[in-house]
């Protein structure tokens, strides 16, 4: 039963008769189906490769907004400023300026 991680999610490809089901783990620990009864008659390795390609199409990688980190607001007087959750593993740091976003003077 091949399992793989993609785009922050864990997918599993499991046989059902001569077909394959693809499921993914939900944040609450339960699982949901991406597809049921697919790839009739394919061997495990081929079904897993087809599943990977399908998942890459269905769940495109994009920018995920992370946060807000409501537990750690900055305060100015009674004004609370809530920033992104910088401790989240998906938070991306840029160490240099992006060329697509040049510094404006």
């Amino acid at each position, binding site marked *: 039963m091949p399992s793989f991680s993609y785009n922050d999610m864990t997918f599993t490809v499991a046989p*059902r008769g001569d*077909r394959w*089901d693809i499921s993914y783990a939900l944040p609450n620990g339960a699982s*949901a*189906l*991406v*597809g*049921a*009864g*697919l790839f009739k008659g394919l061997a495990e390795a081929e079904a897993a490769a*087809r599943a990977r*390609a*399908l998942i890459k*199409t*269905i769940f*495109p990688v994009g920018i995920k907004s992370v946060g807000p980190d409501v537990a750690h607001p900055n305060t100015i007087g009674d004004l609370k400023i809530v920033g992104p959750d910088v401790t989240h593993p998906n938070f991306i740091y840029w160490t240099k300026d992006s060329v697509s976003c040049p510094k404006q003077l």
Partner: protein
Amino acid sequence: MEIKGSVALVTGGGNGIGEAVVKHLARQGARVAVVDMVQKNIDRVVKDIQDLGGEAIGIQANVTSEADTARYIKGTLEAFGQLNIAVSCAGIIRDGTMLSLDKETGQVSKKLDLAKWQAVIDTNLTGTFLCMRDAAEAMVNGGWEGLLVPISSVNKAGQVGQLNYSSAKVADALMPKIIVGEFLMRGIRKIRCVAIAPGYTATPMLTGMNQEALKAILEDVHLGRLVAPEEIASLIGYCVENEAINATTIEITGGLCYPKGIAK
């Protein structure tokens, strides 16, 4: 065209009429792609189809987006290798009269929001156009037999409080004549287009409607009840199988009449 062995995609397949269409086609042996914006509804419907012993995939997408449309078509082709039936069920209502007046002054107190207008046009008209266009492209390039099904509404006739919705649905109802006419011009013979115009149907969409108004409307339905989503699904199944039905819009309303019994 036989349903068994065909591949269908249904936008709005996570709920209401779309869900009934997905399940009806899956029961008849079609492989189905459930396209919707709400992931938990997609998950539920795909699970139900698994329990039926059917074949399905779920794709979360916003039908108003051209990129999402390309993605759900590609996902369907990657899973099943072909596409034969595309049903555009995703739809919304955002009701309101164009103008509201202040009772005391008689002056305009409120106008229909552009946001309410645009959301309905984007989902119910542009979303249907994108689905029909890209599904037809896949069918032509793949050389497959096909049926395109825009979902219109009986309110294409014009419903007060629904300037946005009726405008979109009358345009959806026109699609079969134009699309099939263009197919004839271009020598595309294997793909048909039939729109379905439901009357008031028992789905969650109606829970967003004024319930008093709904009760009053039911008095004008000859059948005396709401249409069941499964009844619409079985009509679509029939349209798939009967290739003489083409370039038209079929109403399924239970006999909705104007007051005094004049059929709508």
